[in-house]
């Protein structure tokens, strides 16, 4: 600890403290422009110049990076000498960037109104780049992405992206925009390419977040794709701020082997990629949302706090809800997604409830099959929702000649009145088809189960055994089996759980005795059997160089027995010897 004197105030500070920090603790304001706590002081704006007096020697230094080392150092932050310097610097800056707010503010604070200097490089832009270098420093030293840099030197110095182009190295972390004091740097959303509502997606959008409000356990996680530390090795700020030192960047996903007796597959569904249908303008036109995005908007913890708003912040005058996007469609999925009609009706109800907007439902057939559903449909008709029976052909942008904001034009055929219609709305909600997960066929292979023609997992019997599969001990439930709503999913899952528990409660399970068996000493390791097994029960043991049969998977079909060229595989409990012995027994009577 050393004692220093700032503007007459005696304070005690730790050695090597910079003057800016010392002044802050003494409650004295020192103007700064290029200073940020996030990175090492750059010390280039020189506006924080102060006078340091040690003994008889007086020096001008920059407060942001001058480390105090000697007891009894005297600092003057506002001496006449400093005032002249600051004024002159501000005159220089103000003459070049007269409309930048932060410069105007500091200039006023140090007493500069109108610069006496004429500047040839004058830039009137209020968001002009003032070359403080914050963005370059954070990109280089903290983020370590090395995207932004200075170019040229002297008065021609500027900040730019390599070749003035969008850079592949940029991880769009936004740190540069965050530290820019003038708003010169903006993060631009690249429309179609990145998805119009990127920051509206359900799920994580920042590097550290709590996945959902209802998450259990409710702890933050790091999103590897968005985390600068994980991408470039830079940043790491969170670990410096986390007092219990709970952050571990080295934690990795790992594979764990668990031995289980039964498996329940509930891999769920995905919605169809709406960009396959460009006629609906998803990702291209503003205010065209998928149903999940709209659900997110309706959520009270969502981006709008539950109010229904267009992208420009206005309340929609009319909303179109379009059913069967990709469902019941020869080009995509022939089946009905089952849930859309009802949630579309719910949307219509909520829009009516929360806004004065007109609502249009574009449907092919209304399928309100569940308990109380038909009543809900009736109620909505009473609420005045416009029901249009017909498929939507195209959504396009429409403009009014009076310069009002553009709207969306929904073109469709109304099959009830037999006319082609164009309906202007401000917002469109698309109800995308439910489809199997993209990797469903992988899962199918792993568990040797089957898929129906629509690629959902196939149950053993649609009526008699709807939750088990052709593989013993493997069960399915929910949308993995086919589109269904929440009550149906819960019911099916409960059934599956009951089946599993009934087996567990048995304690011992009797298995079919007839299985194939490999005699290691005869097996040549030719692997012919491996690919032949319809139940993928045979695998190759690299160490022993022989094939191995998993008893649990083997159904004792005998395909491998007959195929084995060296007769190394026999049917356990069904050997030639046994059959001959049985024959002999019969004949001996």
């Amino acid at each position, binding site marked *: 600890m050393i004692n220093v004197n700032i503007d007459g105030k005696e304070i005690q500070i730790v050695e090597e403290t910079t003057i800016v920090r010392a002044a802050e603790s003494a409650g004295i304001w020192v103007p700064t422009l290029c200073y940020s706590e996030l990175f090492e002081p750059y010390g280039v704006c020189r506006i924080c110049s102060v006078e340091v007096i040690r003994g008889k020697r007086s020096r001008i230094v920059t407060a942001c990076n001058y480390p105090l080392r000697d007891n009894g150092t005297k600092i003057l932050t506002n001496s006449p000498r400093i005032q002249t310097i600051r004024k002159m610097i501000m005159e220089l800056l103000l003459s070049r960037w007269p409309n930048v707010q932060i410069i105007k503010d500091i200039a006023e604070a140090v007493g500069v109104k109108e610069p006496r200097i004429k500047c040839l490089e004058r830039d009137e832009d209020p968001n002009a780049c003032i070359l403080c270098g914050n963005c370059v420093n954070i990109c280089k030293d903290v983020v370590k992405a*090395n*995207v932004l*840099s200075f*170019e040229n*030197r002297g008065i021609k110095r500027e900040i730019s*992206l*390599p*070749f003035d182009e969008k850079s592949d*190295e940029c991880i769009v972390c936004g740190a540069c925009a965050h530290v820019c004091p003038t708003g010169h740097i903006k993060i631009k959303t690249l429309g179609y390419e990145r998805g119009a509502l990127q920051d509206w997606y359900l799920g994580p959008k920042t590097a550290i977040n709590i996945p959902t409000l209802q998450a259990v356990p409710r702890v933050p996680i790091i999103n590897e794709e968005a985390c600068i530390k994980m991408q470039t090795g830079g940043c790491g700020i969170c670990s410096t701020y986390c007092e219990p030192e709970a952050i571990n960047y080295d934690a990795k996903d790992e594979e764990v082997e668990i031995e289980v007796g039964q498996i329940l597959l509930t891999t769920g569904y995905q919605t169809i990629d709406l960009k396959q249908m460009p006629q609906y303008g998803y990702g291209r036109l503003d205010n065209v949302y998928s149903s999940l995005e709209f659900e997110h908007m309706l959520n009270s913890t969502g981006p709008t706090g539950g109010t229904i708003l267009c992208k420009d912040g206005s309340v929609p005058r009319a909303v179109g809800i379009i059913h069967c996007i990709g469902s019941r469609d020869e080009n995509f999925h022939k089946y009905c997604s089952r849930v859309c009609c009802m949630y579309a009706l719910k949307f219509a109800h909520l829009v009516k409830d929360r806004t004065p907007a007109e609502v249009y439902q574009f449907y092919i057939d209304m399928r309100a099959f569940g308990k109380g559903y038909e009543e809900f449909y009736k109620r909505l008709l009473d609420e005045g929702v416009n029901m249009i029976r017909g498929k939507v052909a195209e959504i396009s942008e429409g403009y009014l000649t009076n310069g009002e904001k553009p709207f969306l034009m929904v073109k469709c055929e109304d099959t009830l009145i037999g006319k082609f219609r164009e309906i202007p709305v401000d917002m469109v909600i698309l109800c995308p088809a439910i489809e199997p997960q993209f990797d469903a066929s992988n899962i199918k292979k792993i568990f040797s189960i089957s898929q129906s023609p629509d690629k959902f997992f196939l149950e053993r019997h649609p009526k008699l055994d709807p939750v088990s599969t052709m593989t013993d001990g493997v069960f399915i439930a929910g949308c993995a089996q086919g589109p269904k709503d929440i009550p149906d999913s819960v019911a099916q899952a409960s059934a599956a759980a009951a089946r599993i528990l009934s087996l567990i409660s048995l304690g011992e399970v009797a298995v079919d005795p007839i299985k194939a068996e490999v005699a290691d000493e005869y097996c040549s390791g030719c692997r012919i059997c491996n690919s032949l097994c319809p139940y993928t029960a045979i695998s190759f043991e690299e160490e022993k160089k022989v094939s191995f049969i998993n008893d649990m998977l083997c159904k004792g079909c005998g395909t491998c027995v007959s195929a084995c060229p060296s007769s190394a595989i026999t049917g356990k409990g069904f050997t030639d010897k046994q059959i001959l012995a049985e024959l002999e027994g019969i004949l001996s009577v």
Partner: protein
Amino acid sequence: MSSETQNKAKEISEKWDNNPENIIEMMHDIQDEYKYLPREVIESLSNESNVPVSKILNIATFYNAFSLKPKGKHKICVCMGTPCHTLGAARVAEALERELKIKMGETTPDLKYSLEETRCLSACGLAPVVVIGEDLYGPATVPNIPKLLKKYEKK
């Protein structure tokens, strides 16, 4: 990216041990080879030496030695050191501008000549000094300029 530039970048990077600290020397070699820093080579060099493109460009635009644009066959440099200035280098520069019909820092459309100012070449005894390619001329006087250029007309 053509393999030729890639190989060149690789060769140069290896010559300097692929050490990012030697980036300036590597860039010197590229500048000597191509007479400027072509974009393709910069990008290949960045890959080879692990120096970010942004840094290479920063260096390239910071130092006078490098150019991102192709230069003329004959580089004409007018020394702008103090002794040359006191003895009329500015007039010589103007005469060259008139003669070549380009401004300082530009290249003639036929890529024959580039005209540049240069820092003191330390041949102050010969001030004012003009360097064409590798040849140094001094003292250069305004009436001599056309004669001087004629020597390079056919080269």
